């Protein structure tokens, strides 16, 4: 009796993978870097460079894999920024370029508030409240304990509320 074997899927070119997924990866990074375009473009390039190597080695590069790689790159970037910050002054605003006296829309206020937070706090708030990642997943991302992540989340929320409230007071 003849057997019906599933035909192998045709290999996909890397450029096709790139075209299909670069917007998803870039959007993910833009969201997490608070719309920092240059940083997002650089990180996107790093993610796809890694993906290109995997692709030529025969790996199946899916969007899920690309986003996971983007998340790892982002966390590396956050750690790098934190290490640099720890070496110098810590208590400086992350976004000194904005003029607080300017009246802003609410979404701009949220963006400006996020920009005042540390990269780690930004990452935690967005991953937890926009992407619904739970505490164990965040702990695995960051290589920290659940307990530490809960503490960090509490501090991130408090920092956001404080900065947002101050920002809205300026507006009103």
């Amino acid at each position, binding site marked *: 009796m003849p057997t019906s074997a599933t035909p192998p899927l045709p290999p996909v070119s890397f450029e096709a993978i790139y075209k299909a997924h670069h917007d998803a990866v870039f959007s993910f990074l833009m969201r997490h870097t608070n719309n920092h375009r240059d940083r997002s473009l650089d990180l996107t390039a790093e993610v796809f460079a*890694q993906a290109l190597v995997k692709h030529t080695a025969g790996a199946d590069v899916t969007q899920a894999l690309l986003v996971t790689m983007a998340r790892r790159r982002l966390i590396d970037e956050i750690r790098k920024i934190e290490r640099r910050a720890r070496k110098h002054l810590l208590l400086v605003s992350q976004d000194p370029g904005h003029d607080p006296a300017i009246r802003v829309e609410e979404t701009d206020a949220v963006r400006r508030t996020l920009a005042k937070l540390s990269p780690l706090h930004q990452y935690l708030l967005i991953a937890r409240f*926009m992407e619904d990642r739970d505490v164990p997943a965040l702990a695995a991302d960051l290589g920290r304990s659940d307990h530490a992540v809960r503490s960090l989340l509490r501090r991130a929320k408090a920092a956001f*509320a404080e900065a947002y409230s101050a920002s809205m007071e300026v507006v009103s």
Partner: protein
Amino acid sequence: MSGYGISESQLTDLLRSIDGPSAMTKDEADQVLDQVYRQAGFRRSDAGRPMRVRSSTSPEIHHELMLIDRPTPVEAPAPPMIEAVDLVTRDGRTVARYAPTDGQGRRRSLGRRLLLTAAVIAVLGAPFGVFRYTLDRPARAVFDLQSTDRPDVPHTTSEPDLNGQRRAGDEERSSYPYVVPQPPAGYVPELLVATGADLVKVGADNGAGVSDRLEAGQNVVRAFDDLGAGVVVERIGADGRRTISWLDGAAERPVLSDAILHDVGYAGSPYAVVETGDVDRAAGRHRRLEWIGLADLERTPLLALGEGQEILSASASGGLIAVALGNGECGELRFVTTDGDELSIETDNGECSAPDHADVTNVALSPEGDAVAYTTVTYRPDGQEAGTELNVLDLATGNVYFRRRIGESGHGITSLTYDGDRVAYVLQSPDGETVAAVARASAGPREGPLQAPPEIEHIRGIDQLSGVSFARVPINW
């Protein structure tokens, strides 16, 4: 919206309001793709157009081939090689020297350093000296294992494989110089209480009750976990002499005598923050703060005290050390790294010259090093003492997100510790009575259905108290 209060649904709505579409322009996408090929070591010109070929066996299947060269190998710098290893005693004598090779006459690279150290320790027993390495070239970034911040060292988190799992050996590809040990999932830090007579462990499960008395010997005045299941203790003997010892499970190792133990941190291996000099004299001279590696007993100075200065308290986390420094009139917070760099971090404890300035008296860093708890004695405008306040400052933002009074006029805090969520301290009343308490230093409402515990709970069943510290990982020695 109040300063510190924000509900999760409010936060979710606010954050989701900013999530709009974002896409690269065509030019940006093209530039990024160029960058991708360059970073991956490919030449994009060779990538060219995909070539379609028809399979001879399955005509309906098209194979798309990419004309891509193999990645151009990147010349990686060779690691520094060890010329010689000397074993040097504490008084500076070289007692052994050897030039390690790999059995074929080739020298060992620096990456073997820790293995060699472990091998020699295994042969000689407890380390009685230090290892000094002579390298064939300067290699500070790799060699300086005590530094927290090393921007020259590339840092890469290992990539997951196709199933999202990390592979065995990935940690070696990650160039994190070291990883501070993390507790197992679900671990709630236990409290170590030094009573002056012995050492007591207070479990998190049974609230404020005593769970265990540890056999750390007599006269323990301070104890800290070593982030590896052991503890480091300071004892005061019958002759009044202070000794610091490391109890790591295998043995009790002497660390230092005539010194005060302030905390234990971790920078590649555990180290103790100690105060040395004439520590038992009120006007002691040559006092300084140092850190000492527990494995190699190598000492590195951090702060030399000036005339009239005293160390009120010190706390370590990773390569960061916070110090509460007094000058006879005021107390202030200082931050140094194990590299000896001093960081400028401002706290709002006021101007010393003002009559109502607040004096910092104790300090405790969170295990992650991202927040610091400290106590201040506050004064009324007429200069009279008002009480003691507990503050928690987020080091990344500079926000003090927790502040409340924990002592009245005349009370003193003699020990302080912070696990990132709770602060424990020893409060001494004017008549000398001591009590240990745990305060939950959280901001905003607690999450989940848990009944919030009393904000401050006192630990019962321990009479004499001299020091408290949270065990950052479970102690099983």
